[in-house]
Structure formats: structure tokens, C-alpha cells
């Protein structure tokens, strides 16, 4: 195994989080390097979503360190904007802004966050919308689109901030089966272009195709982590075997 010279994008050391008295994340250690594609899977309630939400500070952790691009995440959320500028997120429920058009959803960040002129912002927005195959719907309103189309818009919207890392929180769980493929295809393309991504998902096919590492979580801990071939073929722990037996 050659020394991994790629830059460390995300480093999580000894992460512990409680919801009230409920210990939801226990001693999580994680390293994500540039260009890596990580898939996190596990039963519901295992803390997978909570973990990635801690990374971009949608949840606050009580113990442990998170470093994003070398910058430590402050527990009380002091440098939130600096962190979030590097990390993009796609949600299970899309969370598009329903009162503005698809194009306006995507120009909001470049225009107001990155302070670009409108023409330039629209150019970037259209570029990403074309990339996800939705450019013909640019002037429609989000609620006029199907679920799969909305999620692709959400991906394009997240990409307009030019993030270095993309987080996906069960992006296809709220979609009808026929629409899952169109979203996964976009994510695969993104991966092949070299985007660093952490993806919480139940779609094992996607994991097999794209992931560099699969992490299995249960009850707030990382049970097992490894390359997809070895994880799917030879899970080492009983819990992993049980889980895979149910999901496959």
C-alpha cells in the first residue's frame, strides 16, 4: 500500500454527540481524502445522518474534533460559514425554495453568497443545470417538477457554491423507484469527475459501483469499514452480516 499522498479533506477524531441524555455518536474516527468516495450505511437510528450533519454543523457535537480542510469546526459554531463554504449538502427532502424558479434557486448562492453579477451567476447555474440534465426546466417552479427532477436541481444548486466536498443525506430515500436511477446517475458522474463525497444511502448498487470505502454504522459506532468488494463479499462482523442479509 503506497503512502496516500492525497490531501486530507475531512478528519474526524473521537467524535461524541448526545441528544439530551441519548448518546447518539460514540468515539467516531474518520478520514476522508481528496477525491475519495465514502458510502455510509446502516440501520435507521445508527447515527449516520447525524454524523454528516455534524460535519457541516447542522448539528453540534459535544466531544471530539472535526477538521474540514484543516480548519477545526468549533463546537459552538463560531466559524460555521467558513466550514460550510467548502462543504455542499443534498437533503433527503430536497429543500428547494418553492417560491422562486429553478434557475433562481441556483443563482441565489453565486449572486448573494459569492457576490457575482447576475449574468455570470446565471451562466454558472445553467452550466450545472445542464450537467444534471435539467436545463430545459430552468424557468419552472420546483413544485411543478417530479421528485427526481427536484433532487437533481438540488444537486445542481449545491454545486453552484463550488464545494470541495459533497455530502449526500439519503438523497434517494424519498423518491419513487423509477426516479432513483436518474439521481444516482448524476451522482456517479459526479464521482467520476473526481468530487470528494460522503454519501449516506441504502443503495448498495451505487456503493459497489462508485465507493472507495464503505462504512457500516450501528448504534452510533463505526462497526466496520473497508473496500466495497471485501465488505459485500466478506463482512467480518455478525451485525454487518445481518444487515447485508436484510438489505440485499
Amino acid at each position, binding site marked *: 500500500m503506497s503512502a496516500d499522498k492525497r490531501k486530507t479533506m475531512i478528519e474526524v477524531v473521537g467524535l*461524541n454527540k*448526545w441528544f*439530551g*441524555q*441519548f*448518546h447518539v455518536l*460514540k*468515539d467516531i474516527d474518520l478520514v476522508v481524502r481528496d477525491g475519495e468516495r465514502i458510502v455510509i450505511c446502516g440501520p435507521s437510528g445508527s447515527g449516520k445522518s447525524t454524523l454528516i450533519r455534524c460535519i457541516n454543523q447542522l448539528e453540534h457535537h*459535544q*466531544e471530539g474534533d472535526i477538521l474540514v480542510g484543516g480548519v477545526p469546526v468549533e463546537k459552538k459554531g463560531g466559524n460555521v460559514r467558513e466550514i460550510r463554504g467548502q462543504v455542499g449538502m443534498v437533503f433527503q427532502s430536497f429543500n428547494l425554495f418553492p417560491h422562486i424558479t429553478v434557475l433562481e434557486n441556483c443563482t441565489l448562492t453565486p449572486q448573494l453568497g459569492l457576490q457575482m453579477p447576475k449574468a455570470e451567476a446565471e451562466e454558472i447555474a445553467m452550466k450545472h443545470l445542464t450537467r444534471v440534465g435539467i436545463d430545459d426546466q430552468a424557468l419552472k417552479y420546483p413544485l411543478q417538477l417530479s421528485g427526481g427532477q427536484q433532487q437533481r436541481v438540488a444537486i445542481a444548486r449545491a454545486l453552484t457554491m463550488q464545494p470541495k466536498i459533497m455530502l449526500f443525506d439519503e438523497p434517494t430515500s424519498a423518491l419513487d423507484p423509477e426516479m432513483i436511477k436518474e439521481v444516482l446517475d448524476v451522482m456517479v458522474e459526479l464521482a467520476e469527475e473526481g468530487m470528494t463525497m460522503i454519501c449516506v444511502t441504502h443503495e448498495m448498487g451505487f456503493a459497489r459501483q462508485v465507493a472507495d470505502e464503505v462504512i457500516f454504522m*450501528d*448504534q*452510533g*459506532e463505526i*462497526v466496520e469499514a473497508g473496500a466495497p468488494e471485501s465488505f459485500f463479499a*466478506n463482512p*467480518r*462482523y*455478525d*451485525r*454487518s*452480516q445481518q444487515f447485508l442479509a436484510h438489505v440485499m
Partner: protein
Amino acid sequence: MSDTLIFSPKPDRPAPAESVGLIGWLRGNLFKDVPNALMTILGAYIAFVVLSWVLNWAIFNAVWEAESRRECLDTVGRSGACWPGVGVWFENMIYGLYPKDKVWRINLGFAVLIAWMIPLWMPKVQSKVAIGLSAVLIYPFLASYFFLGGDKSILWTALISMSLTGFGWVWATALSETFVGKSIGEVIVDKAGARNADERRQRLIKRGAAFVIFLVAVLLVNEWALEEVRTRFWGGLFLTLVISGIGITFSLPAGILLALGRRSDMPVISMLCTAFIELFRSVPLITILFMFNTMLPLFMPQGVEVDQLLRAIVAVCLFAAAYMAEVIRGGLQAIPKGQFEAAASLGLGYWQTTTQIVLPQALKIMIPTIVGNFIGLFKDTTLVSIIGLFDLMNMARAVGEDTTWLGLFIEPFFAVTMIYFVFCFAMSSYSMRLERKLATGRDR
């Protein structure tokens, strides 16, 4: 295949002290940052000042026994409440100017209402809808006689007897369904030994029994001779409850009919309902009360006198019905078209669809708003004080005009405010509980 490793989960650790427990709660909720901490301190100070001032006035410095206001003022001046005035007038605030020796009739009337409605809470009773409807449609005759008294025409006697019979029926049904598991009609048929007889005979027996009981009721009612107490003497909480009670029970069915009428395909009905609703909703209640008060005598044929209380009640009822109609229309609009289509494809007619499918859903959605309307109606009854009726609020003012307690104003108003607050708050808490209980299969 290598040996399977057993996953033993790490034990839970308790959360760090600053984030949970009392300290965690204090930090999160009261002292999150400097502005918050300042607000907490300021708020606590203001709350303390206000509470201590109110408690001092109402309890600690208050006078509990005195013969007149002068005595109170001599004792504590204005820094303490003078409760004896409220105590002396309390019965008037509840019953108005109703003759004190006949107040038992009011109590009896309300006791009968409560007794009438108790079966609604008994778990084994099946006929709850019928009992509820009878409370609304049949009970009022009995109550009117208790409250009003006076001479009984034949028709009036018949109605009161029917009401009494209804009361008997309600309790007979409640008891028979709870202890025997069958409706009272079936029990009577059994006792007459006609369990296996055909339908017609059974119905004959049931109707015969009902008729016999009715006759007994008539004989009883004939013996009653309650002196008339004219509505001029009705007042206080009693009057407020009568007006709002009638208003509430009228507004719901009337509102339903108006809402259905407004949505109707028949243009004449739709326009009439819309005009009625829009007119009564555009103007203040006080103008409607004035209108009925001053103009009704002009509209009535020569010699017909309409009781002033009745005028106010009609005004309140029509006003409430218009508002209720809009609330129900909102509920009807919220029902997806698919429901109507499904009902039509099942062959259900207009009234069947409406009563079985549409209205139950619409009413369930709008329960909080409907109860909000009831609460509003209860509060709006204070307006009748402006046209001279002696509702609860006017009785409070009357205390301060009594020479013994001249000028006593804040104490009776405090008491009346408490009464209104308790009623309204109880109703809104009940509606929130009802909403939660009935949230079946909606947003999970």
C-alpha cells in the same frame, strides 16, 4: 471464510455536564449568550414586579370582611382589594335579578343538562349521537319551562312532556346499554315476551311503551305550576350562558346549511347564502344588535311584541351562523376532489355523500377554528350589555352603583375577568386535546 467477529457495542456514556441537566437547560434556554442573559434578567424582574404587585393587592393586603366600601377604604385604602362587595353581589353576578327564592330552578335546569350529557362519557353507551342530538333539540323545552315558568298551553304542555320523556329515554338507554348491552327498546320488547315476534309487533310494543310514558309525563307536567319569571330579570352568568348556549347550538347546523348552500350549483340558493354570509360578516355585531333591537318592532305586524332577549338572541344566532358558515366552507374546500369522485362512483347521492363522507372530514379539520368561534361567541355576548341586557359584565358594573359599595369597580371586574378567562381557556385547552385525539391517519 474467516471467523465472524462479534460486534459488542460500546456502553453509553452520560452526556457532559454543561449540556444536560439543570445547568444545560439553563444555558440553552435562558443564558445562551449575553443579549439572552440580559433579556432573562429584565424579564424576570418585570415578571416579579407585576406578580408581586398583583398578589399584594389581591391577596396579602386585601380585606376579606367588611360591611361597606367605606370600611374597606378606611382599613387599607386603595392598596388592597375589597372582596366583601364581590361576595355580597356574587349571587347576583351569577343569576342576575332572578328572584332569590326561585334560583333553584336555574340550578335544576343546568343540573338536568349535565345529567342529560353524562351518558356521552359512559363507555358502553352506543346511542351517543342520538343522545347528543336530543340534548340539543329536546332539552331546551324543559329548560325553557324551568327558567321561564308561566302558564302552559296545551301545545306547550305537550312539548315539555316530550322533553321530560326524552330525558327519561336518555337515562333508560344509558342504563340498559351499559348493564344489559341492549337498547331500551329491545329490553321492553323482551320484557313483554315478544322477542320472537315479527317486526311490526315489536314496533307496536315499543311505541306503546313510549306513548304510555309520554302520558305519565303529561300528568306530571300538568301538576307543575312554576311562577313566571320574565326575561327582564334574567341576568349575570346565567344570561350569558343562555345566549351563548343558544348561539353555539344554532350556529353549527345553520352554518353547515349556509356553507353547503353557498357551494351549491343552484344559483338562487348560492347567491342568497353568499349575500347573507357576506352581509353579516361585513358589519360589527353591535350594529346587528342595534338593528334588531330598534327595527324589529317596525317589521312586525301591529300589536306583535318581540321580547328584548329574543331579539338579541336572534341577532347573535344569525351573526354566529354567518361566521361558522365561512369556517365550514374552508373545511369543505380542503377536502380533495377525489373524495367526491369516489363517493359518486360508489353511487352515493348528494345528501349521503355530504353527511357520511364530506362533513365528518371537514368538521374534523376545522375543529380548532370551530371551537375558536365558540370562544369568540361567548366573549361577544358581552355586547348585549350595550343594549341594556344584564349579562355578566353589566352585573359587575352594577356592583359599583350600589350605594353600600359605591365606586367598587376593579374587584368585580377582576372576578368577572377570571370567570371569562377560566371558561375560554378551558374551551381552548379542550379543543387542543380534541384535535390531538382526532388526528387519526392525518399527518404522521
